[in-house]
Each structure stands twice: as C-alpha cells, then as structure tokens.
C-alpha cells in the first residue's frame, strides 16, 4: 500500500516542481514568445485609438475603441483592390515557383550532366545578390520589352528571384527519397517524366507545401519591385498601399496600424491553417537531406 502511494506521488512532484534549469529555459522561451506577441497586441489595440490619444501616450489603452480607423483605412487605400492585386500576383507566382522548383530540384538531385555544378552555383548565387542592386537593370529590361505596368508584371520577377531557396529545398528532399522506388518504376516501364510526376510528386508534397507557404509570405510582402515596376495606381499591391498613411512630415499611426492588421489578416490565416505543415515540411527536408 505504502509502495503504491509512493509511486503515485512521484510523478506529481515532478510535474509541480520542475528543475531550476527547466524553469530557466521555459522562462527564456516565454520571454521570446512575449517579445513576438506583445508588438502584435500593441498594434491591435493602438489601431483602435484616435491620433491625439496615440500622440498623448504611445502605450496606453484606447479610451473608446475607434473602429472608424478600419473603415477609413479600407476607404483610403481601396483595400479590396490592393488585396485583389496582391492575391492575384502572389498566387500565380507561388504556383510558378512551386512547379519550376519541383522540376529543377528533381533534375539537380537525380541527373548527372555537364554543367550541373555551374547550374547549382548559379541558383545559389541568386541568393547572394541584393534586390536593390537589380532594380535598375530589371526596370530597363521590363521597359524595353514593354512588360512594365501590366497586371502580370510582378509575377515574372517574383518567380525569378524566389527560385533559389525552393530549388535547394526540393533538391535536398528528393535526395532523401530512396532511388529504389524510381528504379522499380522504371522496370515497370514508367518514363522519366512519368516517374517524376506520378511517383516523386506525391512523395514531395510536404516540401512543396513548405515552399509554397514560405514563398507566399515573400511575394505578399514584396515592396521594391512593386514600387519600381508599376506606375498604374490600380495595380498597386498591399505593401505599397501602406504608404497612404504617411505624409512627408507626419504619419497617422492608428490608421496605419489598422491598415497593417487588415493586410496581415490573409497571411496570418494561412500561417495558422498550415503551421503544422510548414514545420513538418522543413523538418523532413532537413532530416532526409
């Protein structure tokens, strides 16, 4: 009887009295979490203040919530148009990136050919060149080919400049898939492209999902190309729209924050919906690679 009691009480003391080291680690993690969440909470309640309230004290809570800021932000920026433009460009770019990175990643992982190393280096190099160095040449190219200022303009650089990392991810993931599966498929008479699409594609879905989600954020938030390549205001994307809240010498912070919350909504929803996929995708790529 006594023995049983002891056994029962042991785990309970463990649960309630963790070691100091664990406590410290947890506290540290909590601090990190807070440092990410507090700014979001602050943006959230600040978006409900009047500008005078905000100027009076940056940290205080709103005295009476101003939902008018949201209405004003939607009206001022034509938020629906901005979101539609962003969504159209982003979704098509992400589809393009995922498709191209799958094929290229598979080929670099599985085939040996002349110039393969140079190709891989070329893609890696893409990650090293800062976007701002490329703005002027890209603009010139687009202008000379009459590609600037169209609804599809941004899709081209978004796909081109976002390929490096996805190709690396897919490539390392494919390397982790046993070759025997493909050999078996080949023996059964499946062609190279058949193997790629019918055997490997379903296995690579986790890493492709990761690629798609990561690139969704990158394209949705992109600013520099959208600024330089577009003139027509009706084509502007969400990040450009945020500038409506700034004037040369002052900024309407509560409205800007309302606009930010609205612009963050789609990406936040997507993140929460797919967060487990993102993590498992990155992990599987990492472990198998």
């Amino acid at each position, binding site marked *: 009887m006594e023995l049983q009691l002891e056994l029962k009480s042991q785990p309970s003391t463990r649960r309630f009295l963790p070691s100091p080291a664990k406590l410290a680690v947890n506290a540290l993690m909590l601090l990190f979490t807070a440092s990410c969440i507090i700014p979001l909470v602050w943006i959230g309640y600040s978006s409900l203040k009047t500008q005078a309230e905000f*100027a009076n004290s940056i940290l205080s809570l709103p005295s009476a919530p101003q939902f008018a800021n949201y209405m004003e932000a939607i009206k001022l*920026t034509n938020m629906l148009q901005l979101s539609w433009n962003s969504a159209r460009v982003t979704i098509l770019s992400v589809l393009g990136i995922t498709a191209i990175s799958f094929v290229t990643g598979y080929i670099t992982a599985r085939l040996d050919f002349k110039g393969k190393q140079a190709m891989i280096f070329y893609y890696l190099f893409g990650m090293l060149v800062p976007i701002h160095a490329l703005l*002027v040449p890209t603009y010139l190219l687009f202008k000379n080919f009459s590609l600037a200022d169209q609804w599809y303009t941004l899709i081209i650089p978004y796909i081109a400049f976002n390929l490096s990392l996805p190709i690396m991810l897919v490539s390392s993931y494919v390397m982790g898939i046993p070759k025997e599966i493909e050999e078996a498929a080949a023996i059964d008479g499946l062609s190279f492209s058949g193997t790629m699409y019918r055997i490997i594609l379903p296995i690579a879905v986790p890493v492709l999902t990761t690629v798609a989600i990561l690139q969704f954020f990158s394209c949705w938030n992109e600013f*520099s190309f959208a600024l330089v390549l577009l*003139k027509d205001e009706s084509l502007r994307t969400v990040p450009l729209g945020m500038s*409506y809240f700034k004037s040369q010498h002052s900024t309407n912070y509560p409205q800007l924050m309302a606009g930010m919350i609205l612009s963050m909504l789609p990406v936040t929803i997507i993140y929460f919906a797919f967060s487990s996929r993102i993590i498992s995708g990155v992990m599987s790529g990492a472990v198998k690679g």
Partner: protein
Amino acid sequence: MKKRSFMLGVMVAAASVLSACGNGENEEAAAESGSTITISLMHRYQESNIGKSPEDTAVLDGLQRFRADYPNVEIIEEQLQNEDYSIKAQALAAADDMPDVFIVPGSWMDNFVTNEIVLPLNGEMDKRPEWRDGYRPGTLDAGTREGQVYGIPIAAGPTHLIYYNADMFGSVGYDQFPSTWPELMDAGEKLKEKGINLFSYGDKSKGYAMSSWISALTDRINGPDWTESILNGGGAKFTDDGFVKGISMMSELAKAGYLNKDLNSVDTDTMVNYYFEGRSAAFVSGIWSAMNVVNNAPEEITSATRVAVFPGVEGGLGNPLSSSGGAGVYYSVNSGIEAGEKLDAIMTMLDYMTGADSAKLMAEVGGFPAYDPGEFDKSKLHPVAQAAYEASAAADATKIFDLWFDASIVEVLNTGIQGVMAGSSTPEQLAEETQQAYETLLNKP
C-alpha cells in the same frame, strides 16, 4: 538570299515612310481638333494627405483646377510617398526614363543638371514674367545653375523654428523663450530638475541635425559670409572656430542631459510625439511641424505652444532672427520635351500647381509657399500656424547646408554629428573630418 534582303529593305522603308506619314497626320489632326496632349507626372504629393499637409492640399488642388480648365490635356499622374519617391525616381533616372514632369530635391539638382535629365526653363519663364517674378526672393536659387532655372519651387518654409510649451517655460520663470544661450542653458537645467527635457531630438534618419540645427546655428555665429566662402572655395574652413563652436553648443545640450537620451535612435515623428507627451518643453523643426501640432497634439499642448528661433550668440556675426530656409524641392521638366504645345501645357500646369492661387491656398491652410501669396485670409489659421508663418516671414532665410554643400560633405556631417551627439567623438574631430572631405572636393580636377 539577295532577293529576300532586298524585299526586307523595301518593307522597312515603306513601313517607316507610312508610319512617318501617319504620325504627321495624327499630329495635325490633334492640333486642329485641339485634342489630347498627354503629360506624365510623378510627384510626392498624395490625395490621402489633403487637409493634413498644406503642400499636398495646395498642389493637388491646383492640379484639379488645371484638369477642369484643360480637359484636352490628359495627365497620367503617379503619387508616391516621400521615401518611396526617392527610391523610384533614382531608379528611373538611372534608367533614363523619367516622366515628363517630376520632383527634384535641391540636393539632387547638380547631378540632374550635369546628366542633362532636366530641361532649362528660362525661355519659358521669360514668356510669363508675372508668374516668374512672383516667387519670393531666393526661392528659385537652389533650382538654378549658371543662371538657368531648372526647377520651379513649391514650398519655402524655414527648416529651423522652435516650437515650445510656454506653460513649461513659465513654470521655470521664463515668460518668453530665452533670449540668450546662457538663459537657454539655465532653463534647461531647471527643466531637467523637473524631469523634463529642454528639447526632444530625433536624428535617426540622418539629416535632421543638418537641416534644423547646424545650418541655423552656424549662421548665428559665423554669419552668411562664411557659408558663401565655403561654397566659393574662398578660404573659410570647417575647422574655423565658429563652426566648431556651433557643433559644441549642440553637444553641450546633449552632455548636460537636456535632450532625450535616445536622440540618434528615434525619428522626427517620435521626437514630436515626445513633445506631445510632455516629455520635452520644446522641439526644433521646420514650418511643416506647425500643422502637425495643430492637428495631432493634445489640446492643452496645442494651446500652450508658441514659436521662436534660436537666441542670438554673443559676438555672433549672423542675424539673430535668421532661420535656415528657402525652397528645398522643385518641379522639373524632362530634358526630352521640346518647345511647343506640350511644353506650354506643362508650364501652365506648373503655374496652376505652384503659382498665385495655389500659394494663397497653401498659406491659408498653414503652409509657407515659395510663391508670395500676398494678402490672404488668416482668420482660419490656428494661432500656432500663424505664429510659425509670421516667424518665417520675419526671418532672413539663410542657406540650408544639405541643399548647398556637396553630397560628400553632407554625408560626413550627417554621420559625424551622430557620433558627436552620442559623445563618441568631439566637435573638433568632426570639424577635422569635414574639412578633409572639403579639401578632397576642392582638389578634384
């Protein structure tokens, strides 16, 4: 093969003849029916700022009036926020693809003139003497090179005014803003005891110190001749006592703890907010901050706000009332535009956007236009905006260094002053570094 290339040649020739005819006919037809002229315009004035910023309000009102009066002119307009404009305009300029009309900050003017991006406008201005002569004295200067006007100024406000809380200064025994530097330091000490900063200061974006402090302060001590001598290579040096003294006065304010400690890591928006929160008794800024105080400060702060300029300096050679100022931003025309109907339309549009009517409106809503608005209705102006306007009109405008000095010197000063204010370098060191950059510039072939 020969036959094919001959055919190709014939087709190309025919196409070019036909297209040339076509163009000619189109142009004539357009002229006859008075139909569309298209002007592309890129500027940093936004509809979302109408009513908040005097410049945006006046310029866009002018544009709207022009559109109504000239329906045959189509304007393809692109409105961009200030920093976004800088990024895009520089990219377009590098690609030699500027729109027909665009904004050029004074500090870019040298570069744009040298690279023949902007059109000289003397001929066009001379056709419209009444408009040309309406600009306040000196406002065309920073847009003029070797006698040729390349830019039409918009606003001309001083970049140095002091907005101060009269109640706070009253509570430490000053009925008005201190009239000498020792008095100012004394007020700073008394305010510090109450836990209030004398000035809030925000130089995160580099350039604030130069435009709102250094240009005015150096002029108080050295007088305008020193600045001219620097610009002409006439022997003045940055290591001269006057310049070092001006920088020292700024660093003493920081050292004594009269400014906010985070002075290099907050921007001017935050600096103004500190004043609104009552954490400082004053801030130094341009006339553009007047409407910010009127629109956004809590009521008790707005009603206590008055406007002043730096006090005179004992033994100083400059006018103690002067303020750094003048026009800083210009509308320029693409050098590819030829004289004719289109250029006429552009000049008329610029008259609408910056000339008499627009200037009057800008003054009425609290701005300081480059074009002299003459008499205007001051009844609607808030007392703070009116005080800022009057201080501006009374002040001698002295040159803003960042518009006039070479970019290499501006860069050294903008970066160096942060070190001095943070206490990591001395005014003497900054003066020495600036002088070195200046000498390098002078020795350039």
